[in-house]
């Protein structure tokens, strides 16, 4: 900062102009980056969602339905033709905020599979929820789902009981939501 110290102290106007100019240039760059990357990001998200839906309940097409129930954790419900419903749930219980689970529900009201769409859970612990050894336990379950610690049948992920509870909660909500839809 020795160079700046030699010059005379800049006035308030200079401070405002410099900070404004730098912010304006950065904002412009961000705008350009956003325009360039947005189509790719949207496409990636759409693909990820579609892939998650195919994974939990395969179907040729999905139709988005409006959910009228009272469960605010249900973020979206899709009809998969005769096969049943796919429900996206962001459970209230999660270790670090953003957990979003896609749950497939068949006509008889049991779970056909789950997929973790979005997770901010601890890498290496809670993020293990997307591994088959945990996920596959949900295939075929119905009614209220719980981890073994809470008297249920799901083995929690080692070191990530809260995340496991969140996923169980999501599955329970999804099954209830699908039941409401008929």
């Amino acid at each position, binding site marked *: *900062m*020795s*160079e*700046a*110290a030699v010059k005379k102290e*800049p006035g308030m106007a*200079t*401070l405002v102009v*410099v*900070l404004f100019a*730098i*912010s304006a240039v*950065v904002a412009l*760059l*961000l705008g350009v*980056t*956003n325009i*360039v*990357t947005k189509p*790719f*990001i949207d496409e*990636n998200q759409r693909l*990820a969602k579609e892939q998650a839906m195919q994974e939990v309940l395969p179907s040729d097409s999905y139709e988005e339905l409006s959910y009228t129930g009272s469960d605010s954790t249900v973020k979206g419900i899709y009809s998969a033709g005769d096969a049943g419903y796919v429900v996206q749930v962001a459970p209230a219980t999660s270790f*670090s905020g953003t957990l979003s689970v896609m749950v497939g529900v068949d006509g008889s009201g049991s779970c056909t599979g789950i997929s973790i769409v979005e*997770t*901010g859970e*601890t*890498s*290496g*612990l809670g*993020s293990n929820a997307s591994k088959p050894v945990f996920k596959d336990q949900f295939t075929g379950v119905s009614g209220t789902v719980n981890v073994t610690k809470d008297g249920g049948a799901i083995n929690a992920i*080692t*070191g990530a009981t809260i995340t496991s509870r969140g996923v169980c909660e999501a599955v329970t909500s999804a099954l209830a939501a699908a039941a409401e839809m008929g």
Partner: protein
Amino acid sequence: MNVKKQLMDGLFFQNPVTVQLLGMCSVLAITTTLFNGIGMGLSVLVILTCANVVIALLRKIIPSKIRIACYIVVIAGFVTIVDLALKAFLPDLSKSLGLFIPLIVVNCIILGRAESFASKNGVAASALDGVFQGLGYTMVLVIMCVVRELLGNGTFGGGILNGGEGIRIIPEGIPALGMILPVGGFLTLAAVIAAMQYILNKPKKTETKSEEVAK
């Protein structure tokens, strides 16, 4: 400009993590698998280098009173660009690092180097400083990842090798899970810093070196 000195400073004598003790939060949080460590280290390296170059270019224009605000704007801009680019072109890595990419904005390594180096040195030297400090950071991340992953999970190379599972070295059930949890992060970091200080202080003490360490 002394390239070799800058390299040695970045990796050892002025290592951002073990000597300057900057950026502790991300070091503790993400060092659970090798993939995370390398991804995070390289992201910081790129952002640090870009921010250093821009700040070195602007160092005569930015008034000292508002320099911190200017640095933060520049850094936040680069972090957001990298974040968007990762989301668009490397969605897997972006998913795995999650929140920690946006959090690079508040990683004090970047602000620290802007303030203590890029604002006083030329563009080329600042770019090199960014690369070498980034390498120093990555090196510590990798060491911590390997140790914590091995002791806490019993594997090596999680996220990259063996289809993301990592190569199992210690059989399941034996590893101490605590090493992956935050407490293991603190223990490992303490051990790494202690080892580094021991090695740095072992040779005949020169006055400059011990002074740097004291900071």
